[in-house]
């Protein structure tokens, strides 16, 4: 601890790097994810020749809008050192519930809010179990997952087709700009990402999310509203799952109670690949977005190859492995400092 302020004339590169790492250490995994995404895209282009086209890149967002929305919600929860296994089932539940309501003639302006509220309520249930009954997030969200999956089947045992033009418009309307195209679902997903990033960076609620992930007890002693914030994190995650249900319904044109099995794993994998630590307190929504694009790119590449889609899961698993090992090495390096 030197009391004297040293005269800083020209900053050496070393100083700059050191200051960058001391300020922005948690961004490094995000850059790593970005590097992997670029490498994948370039490798795809080199191999297939027609990979880096506006069409393919646009479809990354178009096909994965629901996953992106789920990943934003999941990022909130994982940042608090929690986890939400229910998102896939909640997506299925809200989607089939929405499809059923639409098929019975309920207007779409009612259906969409109901879907969002349905997701939020399951999130609230999970949050209450965790916060007030000291249930581990893993178990509590497991209950939420079971509940949502059961409810989905209670609504309907089979697929329900959606013919509501407003819902279908969300996916079929394509804004075309020079060969790039964007659907309303993509716009929704990007808006969710932007909102998530702003909330996490610039509101007390957002910083409290990080604080809880750093040390919940300390956050409480600092006078931060821990209970409210944690509940809200799960509610946000549930609402995102409900919104993803809307987007997914538009994407599929139908609701099906078996939708989204394993989606929670894809979501968690995307968030982790995007550089968010599962121990909480470190990570970014933008990173999660990159994680989702990495996922999407792998999926696209595998379909380009004409290979089994089961390779997607295997590749994602392998990539997840590489990421956690690298994260582990970084963490142990910095703790040996």
């Amino acid at each position: 601890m030197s009391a004297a302020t040293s005269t800083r004339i020209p900053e050496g590169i070393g100083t700059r790097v050191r200051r960058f790492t001391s300020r922005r250490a948690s961004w490094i995994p995000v850059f790593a994810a970005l590097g992997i995404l670029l490498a994948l895209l370039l490798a795809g282009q080199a191999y297939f020749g027609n990979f880096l086209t506006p069409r393919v890149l646009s479809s990354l967002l178009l096909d994965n809008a629901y996953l992106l929305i789920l990943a934003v919600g999941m990022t909130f929860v994982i940042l608090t050192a929690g986890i939400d296994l229910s998102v896939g089932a909640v997506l299925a539940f809200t989607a089939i519930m929405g499809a059923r309501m639409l098929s019975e003639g309920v207007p779409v302006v009612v259906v969409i809010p109901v879907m969002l509220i349905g997701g939020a309520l399951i999130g609230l249930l999970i949050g209450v179990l965790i916060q007030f009954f000291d249930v581990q997030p893993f178990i509590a969200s497991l209950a939420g997952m079971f509940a949502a999956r059961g409810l989905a089947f209670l609504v309907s045992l089979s697929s329900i087709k959606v013919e509501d033009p407003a819902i279908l418009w969300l996916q079929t309307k394509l804004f075309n700009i020079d060969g790039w195209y964007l659907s309303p679902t993509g716009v929704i997903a990007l808006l969710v990402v932007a909102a998530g990033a702003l909330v996490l960076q610039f509101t007390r609620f957002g910083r409290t999310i990080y604080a809880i992930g750093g040390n919940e007890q300390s956050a409480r002693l600092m006078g931060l509203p821990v209970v409210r914030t944690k509940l809200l994190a799960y509610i946000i995650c549930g609402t995102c799952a409900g919104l993803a249900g809307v987007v997914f319904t538009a994407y599929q044109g139908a609701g099906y109670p078996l939708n989204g099995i394993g989606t929670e794993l894809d979501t968690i994998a995307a968030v982790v690949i995007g550089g968010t630590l599962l121990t909480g307190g470190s990570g970014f929504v933008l990173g999660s977005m990159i994680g989702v694009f990495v996922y999407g790119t792998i999926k696209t590449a595998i379909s380009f190859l004409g290979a089994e889609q089961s390779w997607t899961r295997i590749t994602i698993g392998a990539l997840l492995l590489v990421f956690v090992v690298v994260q582990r090495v970084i963490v142990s390096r910095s703790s040996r400092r």
Partner: protein
Amino acid sequence: MGDPTTTPALDVPVLQVSGATVRFGRETALDSVDFRMFAGEVHSLMGENGAGKSTLIKALTGALPLDAGEIRLDGQPVRIPSPLEAQRHGIRTVYQEIDLLPNLSVAENIALGREPRRYGGIDWPAMRRLASEVLAELGLTIDPASQLGTHSLAVQQLVAIARAISTDVRVLVLDEPTSSLDADEVAELFRVIRELKDRGVAVLFISHFLDQVYEICDRITVLRGGVLVGEYRTTELLRIDLVQKMLGREITEQRVRRPSDPEPGTRVVLGARQLRRWPRVHDADIEVREAEVVGLAGLLGSGRTELARTLAGVDQPDGGVIVLDGTPTTIAGPRRGIGLGVVYSSENRRTEGIIAELTVRENIVLALQAQRGILRLMPRARQTELAASWIEALGIRPESPETIAGTLSGGNQQKVLLARLLALAPRALLLDEPTRGIDVGAKVEVQNLVGELAANGMSVVFISAELEEVLRVSTRIVVLRDGLVVATLPADELSSGSLLAMVTQPDDGD
């Protein structure tokens, strides 16, 4: 009450507690204690473990409810049901275990909860400016945007204090603030405390280090067994009297029965040449002979813990040789060390010592069982017998081997750990701060035990932050500074003053 000091009658204490009583079940942890603090004074709360110090602090800071008694702020009765409420009243606490957020920036750690805002969002530049100003007051020139976790513990401690003083603080409670600071940092902290005092803040300074208490405190309140002994002016209380009041008994012979110094040329059991372990052990030479206690004296960060860990094979050296019985030996991990008769007891009793949910028996038998291997389970009767014999030998309370270890007091947990290691019948015993955080009675018992073990032929390495204790217990002393062995001397040739000089001051300018 003993012999209270005379204070100006007109002066109303900023904080006053009367008749404070806290019960845990049938046990009374705090029995009708009166305590007061005046604005602009530094006050120390002294007492053994179990005296009720931490209970009183917790009650004052809202972490624990009072069963009876009254708290007054500026003469007005108040209720403090939660730490947040205490903070609202201007009572701030900096705990020993830093309760900040290592994943956030220094600025956020200082300002979070009342951060400046603009356009409904957090105003980051303003927040950094605010943090810089507070940090400057503490003489700290770190980048407020840097992540807290990238700084040393000492800096983090100062950031915690910065957070506390950046608000409208009236009473600042510092619970063992100096335990992770080196001498310079302590001096810096004391400068800050004096400044706060001039500002009219009442500072409650809690420390095990008598020197520090006498240096900084105006007044001392002594507790014993949950009861108030008295409140004294520091200038009017001799150290020996203070210790007596804390212990409640005459200290007769605190000197440890030291084994006679080994004959010159007595066998070296464990040693090391040019031992290196980045970043804290640099080319250390050390020898531990049969039947002697080698004290490692040095400040925190001097490499004393790291040297002991490397010597015992708990951490692997980056260079140099460990010599066991004259043979260069590689000790690949604690398990191998135990096999070779070299055992290490960690300074972190809770995190690296006791298995809290297992019984005393299981804790004592653990290392021996691990050494026997998984397949050769020690018969239950034999386990109980072994545990009972160590419980008796070391005076572990309660005496039942089936007590859950986590429920024992610190001193008894330490004895259980010693029993675990002694049950292995080791040749070399490396004890890292075995007396930290345990009450004075248990402390003396552990010190005596170390002496006896050495007298019976064991080689012991003893680490303590208290130089006095190192001097008392050891036959020879290895002085460490900044990861270097600066001297190895017989304990008889050293006084606590000369030892203090050796661990703190650089030699002739190199």
